[in-house]
């Protein structure tokens, strides 16, 4: 239970980190909060030749609402900072609700937003939340920068579109429309465990009370965070009523691609996905109708 030997670098700026990534190549891993990478190294499931520690890069630890109304989360923002942010609680409550499910306080004190997204564990909360919120991810390399939607960022189990020479530096989360309700729910055997399944939902109502927009994304029900556009589209234009949520959830369950493991069968996970979809949509719609 001790990590294999590695070379350690602690750059002070993003540019220095990108230079190191370019020089050291694929055998180097950026170290963010370490709450997933270090356990994998302790088990020797990961044996990077070099670690590039991002914890000394002050420009990466910042969280603020921008002038365009979007939330700018720099990659090394601790999950606990999101949890404590008044702006996040007020304007992006889906994030606040989901973050409380990540590990435990001790984990969230170190764990970062960029680290969680880059690790791309299908059972992690933040990837699905960022997909539901239409977040854009800013990726830098020594030669330039590019933006990717959260939906295009996740490629598979622990796989993202970030190349070895690139670094995720910022997440931009647009402000949801007025009269948007939210809900994040998950099922895990014990509090703080990885979820067997989870769902993030957003429902927006127009001035007549009809659904004008919906978002539904799942945790732990496929190799990436799965968004069910079929379920979302089925809701748009409808008046909220008891019957529509179950139909949308049933549609969503067809988009799910769960794995079986020692904790749950694929069929049970799919069942949980459908139940959670219905619950988050109902709660989000209720919150939307209570909004001013």
């Amino acid at each position, binding site marked *: 239970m001790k*990590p294999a030997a*590695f070379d350690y670098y602690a750059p002070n700026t993003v540019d220095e980190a990108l230079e190191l990534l370019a020089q050291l190549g694929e055998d180097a891993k950026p170290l963010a909060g*370490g709450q997933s990478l270090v356990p994998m190294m302790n*088990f020797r499931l990961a044996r990077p030749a070099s*670690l590039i520690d991002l914890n000394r890069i002050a420009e990466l630890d910042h969280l603020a609402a921008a002038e365009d109304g979007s939330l700018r989360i720099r990659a090394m923002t601790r999950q606990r900072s999101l949890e404590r942010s008044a702006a996040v609680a007020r304007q992006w409550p889906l994030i606040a609700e989901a973050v409380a499910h990540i590990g435990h306080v001790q984990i969230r004190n*170190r764990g970062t937003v960029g680290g969680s997204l880059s690790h791309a564990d299908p059972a992690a909360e933040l990837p699905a939340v960022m997909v539901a919120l239409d977040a854009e991810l800013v990726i830098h390399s020594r030669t330039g920068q590019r933006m990717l939607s959260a939906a295009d960022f996740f490629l598979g189990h622990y796989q993202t579109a970030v190349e070895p020479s690139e670094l995720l530096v910022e997440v931009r989360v647009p402000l949801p429309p007025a009269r948007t309700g939210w809900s994040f729910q998950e099922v895990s055997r014990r509090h703080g465990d990885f979820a067997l399944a989870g769902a993030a939902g957003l429902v927006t109502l127009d001035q007549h009370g009809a659904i004008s927009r919906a978002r539904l994304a799942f945790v732990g029900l496929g190799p990436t965070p799965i968004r069910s556009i079929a379920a979302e589209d089925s809701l748009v234009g409808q008046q909220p009523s008891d019957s529509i949520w179950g139909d949308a959830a049933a549609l969503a369950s067809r988009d799910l691609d769960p794995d079986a493991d020692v904790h749950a069968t694929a069929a049970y996970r799919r069942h949980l996905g459908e139940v959670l979809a219905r619950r988050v949509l109902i709660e989000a719609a209720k919150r939307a109708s209570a909004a001013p």
Partner: protein
Amino acid sequence: MATHKIHLTVNGREYEREVEPRLLLSDFIRDELGLTGTHVGCEHGVCGACTILWDSEPVRSCLVFAVQTEGAHLRTVEDLALSESELHPIQEAFRQAHGLQCGFCTPGILLTVEALLREKSHPTELEIREWISGNLCRCTGYHNIVEAVQLAARMLAGRSV
């Protein structure tokens, strides 16, 4: 592998040491500094036995490399007691309320609770259970731990009046 020189403050005392990058902070604290009150359980961030305070925030010392703590201010359980003969009120509450049996998980729990009571002086039972959910205890069933935290909150409130 090159070693790195680090300077850090642990329990108010400054240390300078030469470390290999792969040395976990938990092992550094125990083996290099001799502060064996920090316990090592699972070594993958699940059990919470190795919880310490870093800039007053509870973190898992098995998920940090010692080399990362250059300039850090850490506290371990050895720093809690007020003197050789006087326990910290949280420790006293755990003693009185039988908040421990074997004691293996206790250092991590005490430090988590120290941070909790600094942030919320009168936590609800649910808040207490939420905070200590990151610390596994295999002896007590948590009931007496929750009572000990409630007692500690009352003792600390009484002390500050």
